[in-house]
């Protein structure tokens, strides 16, 4: 899909293609504002795409941060209504190990109930029965309505909703400066990451929804945001170990949540404060891997022998309020700043803090503020209107009730695109052929993503479809994907560069866990691409920093 041809002037410029930015663009567009969403790289390239994918019930915060907890449970219920195809209602357990004791557990249920979170005590034996993967030595268990949410799908759906409501979308455009009229911000200067070209976009209100990168953006706007980055590392296992989300029932700590998400499961996280200049350099070190495994096996012993596909890390976009070096005691509370009031800079709003769970609420607050500035009085509807893909359509009902006999890849695509799956062309056998066999991504789905979902390269394609996210990490499908993208892009050298960069990007997540079958897999991949295919680093340009995709 081509990026938008620019309009003369927008009501709102939203900067940041994470869940918050996309959600804000959707909310603004639904309220009739002329909106543009601008993303430096690709949607979900930042913290949105680099977390657990946990649909919090709020229980995790019930003890330490009741306000966040109650926000979470409210948003949890809303997402179950509006984003059905992005979430899975797995349920969750908070389990106490002998080393944790039962003190926290005792207060925990009360705290949950106070915050409005349905929490039910389970006998440990019963917990092992409903969730056989949990450590059988647990001494306490509480059932809560945790689930999993796919941040890629959620963000894409918000982007699509924004677009359907008239918003323009631009990716790979970095804000290099603001256009000012006196003390008022009236637009942004952009440079394209794809061809280096420069443009300007004008808007009456600009919303900074750039997460941790918002710190730098604020500097460009001449205001100071005191954010600090806390890095959290996670490991992805090759398949689902657990059916329900598993949490340690204790004060939040390292490696205490195991979340099943699509075909895999994720253990996390660690928490380390890092210098601001390292936020684009997310490398997981061996100590973090060891820590995640050592603590993780206490939650579910199967982690000791399950293949690890890759490791990744994200940066929590926290607004500093004290000097806690871990960053954990800080509230995940939403921070919505009117820079006119705070700094005397008009037409500029920052929406930050919060968490993936509360992205919609954050968007609502930021949009409310923008509406006030623009003198628009329209109600937020984002909590009640389903996202594209989560609508209750006839076709979708038939699929779900198996009136239509579905193939495996149609079922897999259905989980990814919800009711929009019907847009995937499946009119002949060639369209049904699988490009990515691990994740069941067909030619039709790839073509749909390229045409409709702002796909310019293999990493974009991966985020929209799961291509290359499975067991082989692109060994079988990278080449096929590159072949299909080239048909659309028609620049062969760029496609070869993209293929080479994609393999490099996959490797970056693999080397921290490079033993066992992961090492076998990467040796096989290297032989195949560098050997058989002759993909020679001297003939292609590899984009080095993986976040630059």
């Amino acid at each position, binding site marked *: 899909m081509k990026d938008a041809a620019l309009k003369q002037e927008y009501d709102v410029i939203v900067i940041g293609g994470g869940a918050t930015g996309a959600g804000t663009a959707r909310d603004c567009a639904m309220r009739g504002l002329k909106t543009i969403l601008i993303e430096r790289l690709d949607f979900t390239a930042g913290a949105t795409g680099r977390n657990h994918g946990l649909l919090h019930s709020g229980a995790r915060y019930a003890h330490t941060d009741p306000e966040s907890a109650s926000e979470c449970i409210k948003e949890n219920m809303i997402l179950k209504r509006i984003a059905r195809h992005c979430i899975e209602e797995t349920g969750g357990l908070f389990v106490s190990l002998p080393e944790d004791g039962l003190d926290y557990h005792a207060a925990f249920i009360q705290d949950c109930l106070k915050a409005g979170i349905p929490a039910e005590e389970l006998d440990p034996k019963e917990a092992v029965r409903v969730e056989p993967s949990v450590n059988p030595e647990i001494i306490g268990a509480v059932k809560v309505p945790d689930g999993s949410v796919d941040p890629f799908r959620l963000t894409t759906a918000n982007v699509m909703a924004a677009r359907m409501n008239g918003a323009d979308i631009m990716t790979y455009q970095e804000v290099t400066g603001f256009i000012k009229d006196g003390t008022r911000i009236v637009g942004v200067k952009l440079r394209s990451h794809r061809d280096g070209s420069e443009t300007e976009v004008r808007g009456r209100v600009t919303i900074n929804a750039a997460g941790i990168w918002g710190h730098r953006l604020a500097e460009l706007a001449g205001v100071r945001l005191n954010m600090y980055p806390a890095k959290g590392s996670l490991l992805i296992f090759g398949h689902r170990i657990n059916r329900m989300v598993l949490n340690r029932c204790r004060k939040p700590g390292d490696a205490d949540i195991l979340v099943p998400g699509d075909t895999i499961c994720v253990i996390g996280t660690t928490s380390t404060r890092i210098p601001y200049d390292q936020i684009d350099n997310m*490398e997981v070190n*061996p100590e973090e891997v060891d820590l995640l495994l050592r603590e993780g096996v206490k939650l579910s012993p199967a982690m000791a022998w399950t293949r690890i596909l890759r490791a990744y890390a994200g940066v929590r976009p926290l607004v500093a309020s004290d000097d806690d070096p871990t960053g954990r005691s800080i509230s995940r509370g939403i921070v919505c700043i009117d820079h006119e009031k705070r700094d005397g800079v008009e037409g500029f709003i920052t929406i930050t803090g919060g968490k993936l769970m509360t992205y919609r609420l954050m968007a609502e607050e930021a949009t409310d503020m923008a509406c006030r500035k623009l003198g628009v009085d329209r109600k937020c509807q984002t909590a009640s209107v389903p996202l594209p893909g989560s609508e209750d359509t006839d076709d979708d009902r038939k699929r779900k009730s198996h009136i239509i006999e579905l*193939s*495996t*890849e149609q079922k897999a695509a259905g989980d990814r695109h919800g009711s929009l799956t019907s847009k995937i062309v499946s009119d002949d*056998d*060639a369209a*049904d*052929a*699988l*490009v990515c*066999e691990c994740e069941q991504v*067909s*030619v039709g789905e790839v073509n749909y993503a390229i045409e409709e979902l702002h796909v310019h390269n293999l990493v974009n394609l991966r985020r929209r479809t799961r291509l290359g996210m499975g067991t082989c990490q692109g060994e*079988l499908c990278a*080449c*096929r994907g*590159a*072949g299909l993208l*080239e*048909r659309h892009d028609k620049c*062969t*050298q760029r*496609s*070869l560069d993209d*293929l*080479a960069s994609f*393999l*490099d990007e996959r*490797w*970056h997540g693999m*080397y921290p866990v*490079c*033993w*066992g079958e992961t*090492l*076998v897999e990467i*040796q*096989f991949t*290297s*032989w*195949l691409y*560098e*050997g*058989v*295919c*002759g*993909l*020679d*680093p*001297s*003939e292609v340009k*590899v984009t*080095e920093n993986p976040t630059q995709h």
Partner: protein
Amino acid sequence: MRFDTIIIGGGLSGLVSAIECARAGQKTAVVSAGQSALHFWSGSFELLGQAGGETVIDRPLDSLDTLPENHPYRRIGSERLRTLLSKVPGMLSDAGLKSAGSLDRNHLRLTPLGFLKPAWLTLGDYVAFEAGKPLPWKKVALVNIYSYLDFYPRFLAYGLEKRGVECKMAAVNIPDLDTLRKSTTEMRATNMSRFLTDSAVDRLAAEVNKVAKGMDAVIMPAVLGIYSDAPVECLRKGVDVPVWFVPTTPASVPGVRCQLSLRDLFIRLGGEFLPGDIVKGGEFEKNRLRRVYTVNLGDMPLEGDNFIISTGSFFGHGLIADIERIYEPVFGLDLNVKGGRTEWYRKDFYAPQPYMEYGVTTDKEFRPSRKGETIENLYATGALLAGFNALKEGSGAGITLATALHVASRITG
């Protein structure tokens, strides 16, 4: 059960030494733990293609001094290397495989992504160019099979057009493939080759002819001839212009063909091939290996005078890495691995990866050791050996073949 020579590993290296031993009249057995990396073979054997991971090499046997002193090639020596490797085309021919190439000068093979890479020996029907000369064609047709995903005409065209060849792209279909196409995954090269036999090939040739008119050559994915040359010959006969093949991503037709052909040759020579079995370990007396035990044969060991271990690198499970260490799983042989897992890799995917050079260390006769003690009747060959990066050197097949032939000739005297 007693044998003269027992070979652990049924890939290229294991089979080649097994064939040599069996041909010399030895009672020989091969234990093969599943199929081998030969299944991904491109159809070309490379000898030495690059020096220092960069400079393209034209005359491989004259360029051995670009390699480190302990490299298998330098241990064998250029003269003996020539003697050994000159046997290979004959062996392939005995197995029913035509090949072309010279030890004196590399030619260039065309890769599935359209790059030209130095090679020594290429199967008769696969695209190969003389180095340093303009390509022999002005106009070629790149003909895919409709809906087949592992052939990249546009990448190939890009590579060829850079060298002045005009490319036309087309996809053809014959009804014989329609049933296979119903499967979302199984339109694989090797599966298609099971359908493309007999009269189906005539129909394919007729379709190819429709797009081949006026072309100097047709280039197609290697989707024919998994069990014999007959379908390829039939297609070439039926198409009005010369047809050449480019290998595909796994599993490749030339790879499977080569594997099966060499295995059959070995069996024809009286060898015992034990498929799908894993050697668990052995019993030593002094510094000699007496017998090995396998998973399937249980308490009935295989006894032998000599043993060859050709279990490959990590892919073949010749080496195993766990979170802490890398080891050779059959006998616990000495390796050249140093340090923990952070030492095994570089963060740049395309950098020379240390793990690629790991393997068993040996004496000059390629005999490995355990805890520093050389085992007198055990030899190691192929990708299991330490001290080279086959990928960066473009030397994998050459090392595999040369060490296998070297060791076999030592054993058979």
